[in-house]
């Protein structure tokens, strides 16, 4: 008996391990784009790559690490101390391809003058993969537009993607890989709050900017000079939702909370319940769920017995879709209210007609965006055959901000650390509306923490299987100060 309980343990560990999504996928896709962009140069580049390796062998002592297959280790070993010439010969396919045609003795210098590298971290696999997909596309679109317009001061912007699978464990690995990379100037990411929190210290220690286009947990930017975000925080969002229900959805005067038991879900729930108590919105119960779960009928039955008029889901779209569906099966016909975590086309797809009438908040909606936003949406749809969502837009802007910072501060002669610092200083200096970055999601500027405090929350409602901007908005931020 004991023997196979041990066996069970081993199996658990192994399967969990086996289930971790391979990092390969994103790297492959990043290669693919490069291929399409530079298919004509491919042949030359491959030859070069061979030469590079050969050249490396001449100089065994230094290059041994670089030619290793395992990119992460290789780069980690030689990380900070060796920022010049031979270091660049690493077998990093993307880099090699980015170099373009050049004679082999000047590979390194050519490369340095021709490209700048920015990393994007997000949940490209796992339970938040639909967000990751949009983040990747938003980043790619912006990079493509920048490069088509001549790059950043004539340098090509090259992206590299890191999959954190939406888990803090993977996020730490990705953050370490990016932070110790010898070329990456800044990181756009992470998306999940838990991931941003997991990466925060790593980015801080290594001195590299992480600009999140999606993490809303209150403490994501606190305590680190290197972390920024271009959207609101959960304390605002939670407060906003409570007031919206109280002031505008006046019929729904008793609320139950169903929250994801992670940093995002708990943080948002705390903000919501605190405000609900303050403004006297009746809170009947608050129930947790685990993200691995797919059956929520128990929690919903508990909530049903309290007969709330509205249910606030503090979690992500995948579970929210199941919750809404299963709730209807249990005969719950309360109003559902979600936050930005359920703002994904996949919510509508998975929940089907059960999602009808669901309200949610979002940092941005194309319906309320200007002309520029419409143009970007059209370009996005032409490129990827699907309309962009909020996260694509925020990533698009985050990438734009990083590109602008690089453009203004990049110094070829400076070391990597100096360049990274300059980017940070530039972002930190954007602290008034006048200096703010004007993107498609509106004006972005940072407070002392690196948080964006000026952006309003928009409310959307699901009508006929589509997100529609709700008729009544609360865009005046003065009430929340």
């Amino acid at each position, binding site marked *: 008996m004991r*023997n196979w309980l041990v066996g069970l343990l081993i199996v658990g560990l192994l399967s969990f391990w086996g289930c971790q999504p391979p990092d390969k996928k994103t790297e492959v896709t990043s290669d693919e784009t490069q291929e399409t962009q530079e298919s004509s140069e491919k042949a030359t580049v491959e030859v070069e790559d061979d030469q590079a390796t050969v050249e490396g062998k001449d100089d065994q002592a230094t290059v041994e690490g670089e030619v290793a297959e395992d990119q992460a280790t290789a780069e980690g070993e030689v990380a900070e101390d060796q920022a010049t010439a031979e270091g660049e010969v690493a077998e990093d396919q993307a880099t090699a391809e980015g170099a373009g045609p050049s004679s082999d003795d000047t590979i390194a210098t050519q490369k340095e003058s021709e490209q700048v590298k920015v990393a994007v971290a997000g949940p490209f696999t796992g339970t938040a993969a639909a967000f990751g997909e949009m983040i990747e596309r938003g980043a790619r679109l912006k990079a493509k537009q920048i490069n088509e317009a001549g790059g950043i001061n004539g340098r090509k912007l090259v992206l590299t993607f890191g999959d954190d699978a939406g888990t803090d464990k993977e996020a730490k690995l990705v953050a370490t890989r990016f932070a110790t990379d010898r070329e990456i100037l800044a990181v756009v990411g992470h998306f999940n709050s838990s991931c941003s929190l997991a990466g925060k210290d790593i980015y801080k220690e290594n001195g590299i900017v992480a600009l999140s286009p999606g993490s809303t947990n209150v403490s994501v930017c606190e305590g680190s000079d290197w972390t920024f975000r271009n959207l609101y925080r959960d304390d605002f969002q939670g407060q906003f939702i409570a007031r919206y229900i109280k002031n505008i959805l006046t019929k729904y005067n008793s609320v139950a909370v169903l929250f994801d038991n992670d940093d995002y879900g708990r943080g948002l729930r705390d903000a919501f319940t605190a405000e609900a108590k303050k403004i006297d919105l009746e809170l009947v119960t608050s129930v947790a769920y685990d993200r691995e779960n797919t*059956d929520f009928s*128990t929690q919903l039955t508990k909530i049903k017995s309290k007969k709330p008029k509205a249910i606030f889901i503090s979690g992500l779209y995948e579970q929210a879709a199941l919750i809404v569906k299963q709730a209807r099966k249990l005969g719950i016909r309360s109003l559902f209210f979600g936050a930005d975590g359920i703002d994904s086309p996949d919510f509508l797809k998975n929940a089907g007609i059960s999602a009808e009438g669901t309200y949610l908040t979002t940092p941005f909606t194309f319906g309320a965006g200007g002309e520029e936003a419409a143009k970007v949406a059209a370009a996005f749809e032409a490129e990827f055959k699907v309309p962009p969502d909020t996260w694509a837009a925020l990533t698009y802007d985050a990438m734009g901000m990083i590109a602008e910072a690089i453009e203004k501060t990049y110094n070829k002669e400076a070391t990597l650390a100096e360049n990274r610092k300059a980017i940070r200083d530039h972002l930190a200096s954007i602290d008034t509306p006048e200096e703010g970055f004007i993107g498609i999601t509106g004006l972005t500027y940072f407070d002392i923490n690196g948080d964006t405090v000026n952006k309003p929350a928009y409310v959307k409602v699901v009508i006929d299987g589509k997100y529609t901007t709700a008729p009544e908005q609360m865009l005046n931020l003065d009430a929340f100060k």
Partner: protein
Amino acid sequence: MEQFFQQLINGLVLGGIYALIAVGYTMVYGIIQLINFAHGEIFMLGAYIAFTLVMFFPIPLWVAILVSMLFCAGVGMLMDVVAYKPLRTAPRLSALITAIGVSIGLQNLARMIWGAKPQTFSEETLPKFFQQLNPLVEPTSFLNIFGVSFTENAIQFSEGVFLAYLDLSIIILAVVLMFGLNRLVTLTKIGKAMRACAQNRVAANLMGIKTNKVIAITFAIGSALGAVAGVMVGVRENINPLMGFHKGVAAFAAAVLGGIGNITGAMVGGLLMGLAEVFGAGYIDTFIEFICNNIGLGQFYEDEKISHSYGSGYRVAISYIVMIIVILIRPTGLFGKSSAHRA
């Protein structure tokens, strides 16, 4: 009270699903003393196959279930031939490790074919009475007897107790299939052969029973039942490459709870696990609150945000605790016979 009955229904549905999967674990263990960890993946494949069929061909769900059962039975037998048969005489641990390998392999195969993103059966591929209703429209009740009303997709027993036809069909399917399996094992010739193999494989072989054939059939039956459970879970929840792992481990625990190797045990164990999970998660917070109030910590409970029911976030853990307690008291499980040779 309404909550109690609703939770009872939830528990029965979950228990039925666990029982269907657990039978597959227990039958294979009974005959070749192998814990077939890849069984959860068969369950997952069953869901994916039915999903793919109804998405690409205009066939009703029940046909897809039948095809998926046949397919999974085939996969189960193939798995036996390819992975376990060569190891029949090898130490048991080798076969166990192989099972883990097959499990991981199938999981990643599914990820490659269908992607990591969860899939949902689209509404129009489901029978009318499984479909979602527009929540903004009052459901119409077309039959009402003794306060029990029948609506488009659920039976409403009283104000707050609902039984969706989908859940009802899961319970019915589970009961019918369990009953059928029980008859098969006790009444038919192949059932007799299975029992003989379970008692002593070598002796059975000497008596002229084709043990390899019996083992193949065992795999096929277990896999087919797993496939049914997979499709029903796929319709009720969603389909993802990890579903076999999550539900599979719970079902395995159910098989252990009932006494692994014993089919009745697996059925009862599955039901108990489902009920334990649902009732544990449903009432743990009430329980904690009750304790806090009785030892004078009521105010503390209110203040310290424990009033947010974290308990139901740990529903899976609760069912494992039940299993561990039962195993501690009865190491052979509820229906298991004590036996000297265990893996």
